[in-house]
């Protein structure tokens, strides 16, 4: 089957590679550099499995900038363009999806379009009615950054938002591409599938906030948070995973998905959804005050990435702490080897660790990494288990 994939970010690229194991895939992006890299077998993002599969060269995959090449003759078009959360409209900006749909309909009106980008609950159904097009289904993406292809090769479940033969066909494509045999498949109604994505990520945001609030309480009450968490997580109803305190939940999905869900609730009575969103800022405010209590002259910020293995700074929790420390008049210096600019938000970026640690009298780190071992007495972290 010929499949087109629109967008070469985490979601698009991992889906393109996944599907190119059994189908002919043409991926399209608006960035020439990404297209060239993919055609040269080089991954434009940090992801072990993506790099391996691209390097092997056994895939039926090519990338292009040309919509005609990509969409002509494609039976299925996977849409994986970015939908950033707009804090003014309180909704995802879905314009990139709609632009793709318009182009596809102009070139290949019969193609079935599968939206993989995260969208507000109810989006696909409304869009179908508004533009009078029935060929659009939503299928949520559950991958983690840095493990994008791995998570698609070993999916926890495949969800497609249409209970129909073609919904089953889309699910079949994804299941056929997975390496596991027993992947659960759920065909649901459209808005339900969109809600699944938002509610799953918001649950995880709640879990992160729960352990962060526990840690906040423990810090303020002289209770050992490590003992408490280790004991608590022996309870199988809680589980020993995803429980390491941090500066807040961050990354590409959790902050924006929880905000989008809260906006979707609109007039539906709720208390917890709001608390999950508010909890994150309260945590950062509390930690900022804890840092200020130590009266540092120069605070060193160790890494802007959200977690070890991440290659971007999108919505990382430490950025809000930087803003708050800056507002309190603290001098800041940033250590971030993957930063290509000499400054970030007006603060100097140092790529030499020795120079960085000499200048800072307190180093804040969302996650402990081996390079911090020599300066451990300067480090402020809430990473209790040395894990992501």
């Amino acid at each position: 089957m010929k499949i087109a994939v629109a967008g070469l970010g985490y979601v698009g690229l991992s889906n393109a590679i996944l599907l190119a194991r059994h189908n002919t895939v043409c991926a399209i992006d608006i960035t020439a550099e990404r297209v060239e890299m993919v055609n040269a077998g080089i991954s434009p993002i940090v992801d072990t499995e993506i790099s391996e599969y691209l390097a092997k060269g056994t895939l039926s995959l090519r990338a292009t900038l040309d919509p005609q090449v990509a969409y002509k003759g494609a039976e299925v078009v996977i849409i994986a363009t970015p939908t950033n959360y707009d804090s003014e409209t309180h909704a995802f900006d879905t314009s990139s999806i709609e632009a793709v749909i318009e182009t596809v309909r102009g070139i290949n009106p019969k193609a079935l379009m599968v939206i993989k980008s995260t969208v507000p609950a109810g989006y696909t159904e409304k869009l179908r009615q508004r533009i009078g097009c029935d060929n659009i289904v939503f299928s949520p993406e559950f991958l983690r950054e840095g493990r994008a292809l791995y998570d698609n090769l070993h999916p926890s479940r495949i969800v497609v938002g249409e209970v129909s033969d073609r919904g089953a066909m889309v699910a079949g494509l994804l299941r056929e591409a997975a390496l596991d045999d027993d992947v659960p498949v759920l065909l649901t109604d459209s808005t339900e599938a969109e809600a699944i994505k938002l509610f799953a990520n918001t649950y995880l945001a709640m879990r992160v906030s729960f352990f962060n609030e526990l840690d906040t309480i423990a810090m303020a009450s002289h209770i050992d948070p490590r003992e408490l968490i280790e004991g608590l997580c022996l309870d199988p109803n809680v589980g020993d995973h995803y429980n390491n305190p941090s500066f807040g939940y961050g990354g590409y999905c959790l902050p924006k998905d929880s905000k989008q869900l809260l906006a979707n609730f609109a007039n539906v009575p709720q208390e917890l959804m709001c608390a999950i969103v508010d909890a994150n800022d309260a945590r950062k405010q509390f930690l900022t005050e804890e840092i200020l209590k130590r009266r540092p002259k120069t605070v060193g910020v160790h890494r802007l990435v959200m977690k070890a293995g991440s290659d971007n700074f999108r919505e990382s929790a430490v950025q809000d702490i930087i803003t708050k420390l800056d507002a309190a008049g603290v001098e800041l210096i940033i250590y971030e080897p993957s930063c290509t600019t000499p400054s970030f938000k007006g603060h100097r970026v140092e790529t030499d660790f020795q120079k960085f640690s000499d200048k800072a009298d307190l180093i804040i780190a969302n996650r402990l990494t081996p390079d911090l071992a020599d300066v451990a007495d300067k480090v402020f972290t809430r990473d209790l288990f040395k894990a992501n």
Partner: protein
Amino acid sequence: MRIAIIGLGYVAISDALALARTHDVVITGPVPNRVDAVNAGSFPLLDPSVADYVANNPLSLRATLNTAEALDGAELVLISAPLAMDVDNGSTSTTELESRIEMAHHRCPGVPIVVRSAVPIGFTNRMRTELNSRAILYSPEFLREAQSLQDALAMSFLIVGDRGDLGSKVGAVMLSAAQRPGVKMRLMGASEAESVKHFSQAYLAARVAYFNELDSYALAKGLNSRQVIDGVCLDPRIGTYANNPCFGYGGQRMPRSMNHLNNAFGGIPAHVLPTVTHPNRSRIALLVSKIMESAPRQIGIYSPNGKVSARDPLSALRARLIAQGATVCTYTGRKSKDGSELAQFKTDCDVILAQRITPELMDCRAKVFSRDLYALA
């Protein structure tokens, strides 16, 4: 080892049964009919597995009304006591528990005393100071009342609130209650162990509240709630347990734990934890509006296990419905021989509110308003 257990509630009796396989256990409390029942071998537990367990395991267990006699010669004392919660200010009265600890402390100096009741955070350290004794420990229980003995026998983990040798020794005895190998034991500070108990309740409360809010959303937007929950819970980090919506959480334990946390940590910046203390308000408001949509003439509340307690969400639901002008009656499970009571209830009501759908409601399924999405087909 000679073990004395003070208390005759389901935790005390389950502990006693589980430990009496390998130890000489004497259980005591001021309730004559319970003492008699234990001595007659008919144990007053809801857990249906008791009879089978007692028939298949030789036990060294007797009960007495005389606490002093129970304590004589004891090498380990376990104490449970009802903790009365003041609904208005959320505080818990530990008076009864304290007097039991003091008595054990004076009758059995130096003998380890293990508190099993879900005490407020800081309680154990306060008792240690007041009685000038290190031998008072807290070890949380995680027994569900309806299967308390099975839970005691199948424990997968044990927490003991003492980091030293005493904790190890007491833990070794407590482990002998388990009928399975590989129980994970964790020693920790007394306040940490107390906190584990309450945070465990809080996590469950947050989870229940979360799926209820998800369900409110689905209900308000006309979505298939079950589809959404199924899709969410297939994430292994979320899991498929404890996800069936209800009208709101009730009972004693969760609200009590939430109150302990609020009292211990009031003023600390938190949002999720304080919210799960009172998660039911908005839920109840939405449910009331949904129930009233059909303008019911007579609403019935189905409470088959007895009266609706003040802390039961059904109670809040009833009050709100009455405030909206609805006529509400309650079925409390009182069985007349011919079953006419329930039959009359079903006839009289045009809407029946049920937290959980039971087989006896199946013949009037169309009248039942429930958020039980995983009920019998």
